[in-house]
């Protein structure tokens, strides 16, 4: 096992970075002052990984919702429901599936070694049978229906479907009731064998732990070695699929969501982090509570406090979203569009405020074992050095922000999705 000790440049605390003999990347954040231990293991397998090359080179295609279904099924083994094993120790365990990752985690104030062992075991030893896959179908169908009843969830995927003609980010993470119907036990096992490998995972453990004990347990993780298979994700960097998308739903007020599509691939952590940092400054300048421009929209009644902006950027897709509820969706969309393309100035004062805010945020994270473990696991999986994100923010200039604005905030990247109130 290789090891490296790094000191946190913000509060001076230690991060140990290691790689096990089988290739699992590990970060340990020993924090004796905390009482809670949190552990996170994350895999580079998400809802957008629908097609991949099998060992014999053939392309395997899977239904929407497969990664999420697999996440559900790993919470079951031969002896006992996994939730109960953790609960008996007073620990809380859960998992989430996103577009590009599946993440499993626990937090507890005692018996962390047993909890960590069980967390690694649940990922590494799947107990998937036709019977228990069938049993889970009804549960997942209810989860899918719950999201289908959510106007905000629906609005986001209405937009993504209009931005992307080919890329699987257009599909909901959980899939549909129809798509999960086609998921079988052999398929889930095939996906587990393909993606649940040490080279496609990262583990982070934070709290009052002994570094050597963590590394010993990580070394014993039974995940197979190797990297993830080659994905067969379609390149979808052309212009937007459709400029507008509309639907009706039983909502209290119409919802408008504007999306700006990334037009180029971002290879490597640094490229994605720089892109995200600069985009964050642009969106902050326009739409954060500190923005006079946002306040002006409020004062003229074009938007209200439901206004929000966000950015998601991965290697093969990326989108900035801005949206709100509005009685007059057309007017709200026009006002947001106008602001997106306005000739807005950026300055060092804004950058300095944001750096201060981010610095404070990083200090706060140091108080939480959960926040530390999540942040470091995701960063490690993404190939970043510890605290590389802080370096990116420090190096960011006004010129970078302006370039980013000019690249992303273009009319040919824009789609407007509207959810109308059902008459």
């Amino acid at each position, binding site marked *: 096992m290789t090891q490296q000790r790094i000191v946190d440049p*913000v*509060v001076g605390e230690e991060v140990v970075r290691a790689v096990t003999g089988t290739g699992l990347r590990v970060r340990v954040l020993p924090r004796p*002052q*905390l*009482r*809670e231990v949190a552990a996170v293991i994350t895999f580079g397998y998400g809802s957008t990984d629908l097609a991949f090359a099998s060992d014999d080179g053939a392309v395997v295609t899977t239904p929407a919702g497969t990664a999420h279904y697999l996440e559900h099924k790993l919470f079951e083994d031969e002896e006992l*429901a996994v*939730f*109960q094993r953790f*609960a*008996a*120790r*007073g*620990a*809380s365990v859960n998992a989430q599936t996103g577009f590009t990752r599946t993440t499993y985690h626990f*937090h*507890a*104030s*005692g018996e962390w070694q047993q909890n960590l062992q069980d967390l690694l075991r649940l990922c590494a030893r799947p107990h998937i049978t036709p019977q228990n896959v069938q*049993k889970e179908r*009804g*549960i997942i169908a*209810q*989860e899918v*229906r*719950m999201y*289908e*009843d*959510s*106007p*905000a969830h629906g609005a986001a995927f209405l937009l993504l479907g209009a931005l992307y003609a080919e890329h699987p980010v257009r599909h909901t993470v959980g899939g549909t009731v129809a798509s999960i119907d086609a998921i079988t036990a052999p398929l889930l096992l095939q996906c587990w064998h393909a993606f649940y490998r040490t080279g496609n995972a990262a583990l982070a453990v934070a709290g009052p732990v002994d570094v050597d004990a963590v590394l010993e347990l990580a070394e014993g993780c039974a995940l197979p070695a190797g990297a993830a298979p080659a994905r067969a994700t379609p390149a979808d960097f052309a212009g937007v699929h459709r400029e507008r998308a509309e639907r009706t739903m*039983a*909502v*209290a*007020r119409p919802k408008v969501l504007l999306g700006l599509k990334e037009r180029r691939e971002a290879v490597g952590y640094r490229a994605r982090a720089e892109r995200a940092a600069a985009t964050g400054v642009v969106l902050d300048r326009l739409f*954060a*509570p*500190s*923005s006079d421009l946002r*306040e002006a929209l*409020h*004062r003229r009644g074009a938007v*209200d*406090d*439901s206004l929000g902006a966000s950015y998601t950027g991965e290697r093969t897709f990326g989108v900035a979203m801005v949206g709100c*509820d509005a*009685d007059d969706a057309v007017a709200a969309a026009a006002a947001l569009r106008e602001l997106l393309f306005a000739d807005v100035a950026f300055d060092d004062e804004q950058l300095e*405020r*944001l750096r*201060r*805010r981010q*610095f*404070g*945020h990083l*200090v*706060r994270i140091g*108080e*939480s*074992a959960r926040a530390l473990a999540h942040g470091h696991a995701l960063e490690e999986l993404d190939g970043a050095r510890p605290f590389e994100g802080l370096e990116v923010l420090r190096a960011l200039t006004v010129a970078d922000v302006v370039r980013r604005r000019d690249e992303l905030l273009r009319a040919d990247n824009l789609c407007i999705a509207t959810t109308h109130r*059902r008459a």
Partner: protein
Amino acid sequence: MTRSFAGFEVEEVHGTPLLWRRDQRCKTFRISLLLQRPMGAGQAARALLPLLLQHGSEQHQGRPALARARERLFGAGGGTGCGRHGESTVLSFAADAVAGEFLPQRPDQFTAVRDLLQELLLRPRFRDARAGAELFARERSQALAAARAVWDDKAHYARQRAVAAACAGEPYGVPDHGGEAAIAALLPHQPAAMLDDALHDGRRLLLMSGVLPDDPAAAIAPLLAALPRGSAASNGAAPVPPMAPAARPVGRTVEYAPMQQAKLVLVFRMPRPVAPGALHALQIALSLWGGGAHSRLFQEVRERRSLCYYAAAGGDADKGLCMVQVGCDAEQVEAVTAATLEQLAAVAGGDCSDAELATAVATCQGPFRSLDDSPAGRLAYTAEQWLRGFDETPAQRVAGLGAVARDAVTAAAASIALDHEYRLLPAPTAAAEAQR
């Protein structure tokens, strides 16, 4: 001589109880002023205060100016809340920030944050004669829109409707936002009047935790000295106990919405615990019955019968009420209701293994074991203890939970009785919209 409460030091500063706890393991500090008033008339006006107070003060005019001031303080947080405790409303005015010693040039963050909180509380911009009218109109409109938007989250809507139906005629039945009609009828002077009412006559408490100055009482004294003096009779007076109806037949409400998944809310009544031991037993009974993935409810209706994705029981001990919420297919509502009641009866009848009981205890203890890691969580816990009148540290809570006897758990479960069954069922669009 100082005394302690729930692990916090207690002092009285300018007539206000100050509870503070220094924790040098932290890197941040938090200040929170609570003002408690009986729930009832004025809820809509009180609920508007957090929105109005976002607009800054005489010194930081407008939301952007306030947000920028907080960013310069290395992302200082804070805000106003309008919550409930039993059948009282609790206005909270909070501020938190990274302590100066962890920041470049070691700025005096505590004084800056305290002064910002004082400025917002005592010289809010919404009281300004010119700006106030515009801000009131804007925020009343937003509050109305937000109240209507509850409809978009059908689980939230079902919960709100269930409580309104079960607690009709009780102050608790009024939604947190005060109700659409009350918001629409609000007059411009009412929010300021409610703030004055809370400042003058509210039961006050100031809490601080984390990295604190050497003399916490002296450091916070300027803020407390500036507050209007409350009447001696109101400050510190325990609130009126919440209403609890006499035993009655189970009520039933069925409503419809255009959606796919039915929402079932079962409202139960239970005795309000008046001593820590009763609270511990109730907490374990709720955990065993429906308090998480280990619970009887979850295991039966989700894991064994695949009827739903979520099914959970949650209680408001200070009102003496708990709810089970489930999302499932409409045709399974009867089965889920029956299974929920069967599992409650099983727990009340003592039909649970020692391992199940031990798991429920461990699950209840878990969050309290690490509560000290979170300044905000520890402060909220202590505030709740004060409002409840219990004096337990988290460690004492852990020990108390561990000491509960099986009989006390089954007795607590046996005291939980179904009061109202609320169903929100999928329906054709026209009927649901007409109902709305």
